């Protein structure tokens, strides 16, 4: 398995990794994938005034999955709800050189983000997320 230097960079210092810290705004979360499917990702967003004001992810997965979470988080930080909705995780393929056999794992990120959006629309939870 070859890893691109972008993957190596994100893996070495992942952005927004770990459980979301307490803070202002509404917290929402969503998961995608499973251990059986080879990767499990969880995104947690804190949203306020129609924008993502903070976000974090957790992942059990291969280096490509971890780098994809890190890059996605970097790209989505501070974005509007519409921008979040328009975000296509397949856009992560090229910058990370994700091999064809692993593109399914990017869809797990999409699943997690969609669940975040649904929770956002449903009002989410106003109390801070429990620390993991």
């Amino acid at each position, binding site marked *: *398995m070859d890893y691109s230097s972008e993957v190596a960079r994100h893996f070495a210092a992942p952005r927004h990794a770990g459980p979301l810290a307490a803070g202002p705004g509404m917290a929402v979360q969503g998961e995608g994938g499973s251990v059986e499917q080879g990767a499990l990702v969880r995104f947690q967003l804190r949203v306020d005034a129609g924008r993502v004001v903070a976000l974090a992810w957790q*992942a*059990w*997965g291969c280096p490509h999955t971890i780098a994809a979470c890190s890059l996605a988080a970097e790209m989505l930080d501070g974005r509007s709800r519409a921008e979040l909705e328009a975000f296509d995780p397949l856009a992560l393929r090229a910058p990370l050189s994700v091999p064809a056999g692993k593109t399914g794992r990017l869809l797990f990120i999409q699943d997690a983000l969609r669940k975040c959006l649904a929770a956002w629309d449903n009002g989410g939870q106003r109390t801070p997320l429990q620390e993991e």
Partner: protein
Amino acid sequence: MQLPVYLDYAASTPVDPAVLALMTDCLARPELAGNPAALGHAAGRVAQALVEKARAQVAALINARPDELVFTSGATESDNLAIIGVAQFREARGRHLVTALTEHKAVIESCRHLAARGWRITWLRPDADGLVAPAAVEAALEPDTVLVSLMQVNNETGVIQDIAAIGAICRRHAVLLHVDAAQGAGREPIDVRAQQIDLLSLSAHKLYGPKGVGALFIDQAHVRRVAPLLFGGGQERGLRPGTLATHQIAGMGEAFSLAAQRLPVEVAHTRALRDRLWTGLQQMPGVLLNGHVQQRSGHILNVSIEGVEGESLFYSLGELCVASGSACTSLANEASPVLRALGRSAALAQASIRFSFGRTTTAAEVDFALERVAQAVRKLRSFSPLRVAGG
């Protein structure tokens, strides 16, 4: 300490300096250019003498007679020759073989090849510790069983089978026993007489000898009762034709002779390192030992780590040369079938690391490995969505 730290002695070992010196000598002396089969002239005879010396050295390590050894290109070929060669020779007597799910691929695939040609194979599943009960072997024997093939030391877990007990059962039932000792020979004592082994596979590069040479022991009573897989100039009594590779064989002989001398020191050295690493790893929660806690070889430590994914774990350990149960890092396409056979989940089989130690491994290297693993696990768990009990 040189980086990366090599902890993959079960995959291959560096060539011993004494072995290297002998091999270089063989290769550099033009009077040794001869083909060992060209007994008519001086160059051929000198080469042949080197081959015969090596044959005796290899035989001595396993308490065999020199004429019971056939040189091959490695343990893969030895396994194939033993299993397919015996099965084909004894075809008329029976077409049933017994082996285990945790054997090396050379054994597994040889058996599968026979299965595709109509042989019946009983695949024994070891217990959760990796041990195959001798009673299970006995229960698997059928009237037309011609061969039992079980390894001495498992190449992934280091688990040691009770070959002597299995040998006694096979002898009692007049069934041949083949033992893949590629991992075990020179690392754990083995004695083809005492353990009643009929065929035994050896490889030089697991024991500080060169890659690309091995041997098959065949008990004198059966040496003419194995069908060859290759055909040609009649070398090795027709069992394995092809020009004998003098330098390779001489190197194997020297390596085996050294291994015999060093065995007790070697065992003590690797066990100490293995226990040091295992003690250290146990300081972390969620680290599981793969294989029996006592009945295993000193040179291998195999653990599974909860809450982390195998490929990322392995990728984090770039400064270590270790083996992993993870799919993407080796030629295999699935999580280690050996660990799966021991009952590990696919995720835990993948999140496994095989550390293997050797003659030149130091305590400092083990401590470095420990630190790197702890670091990697801490980091991966810091953003893992999975919880680890006690973590």
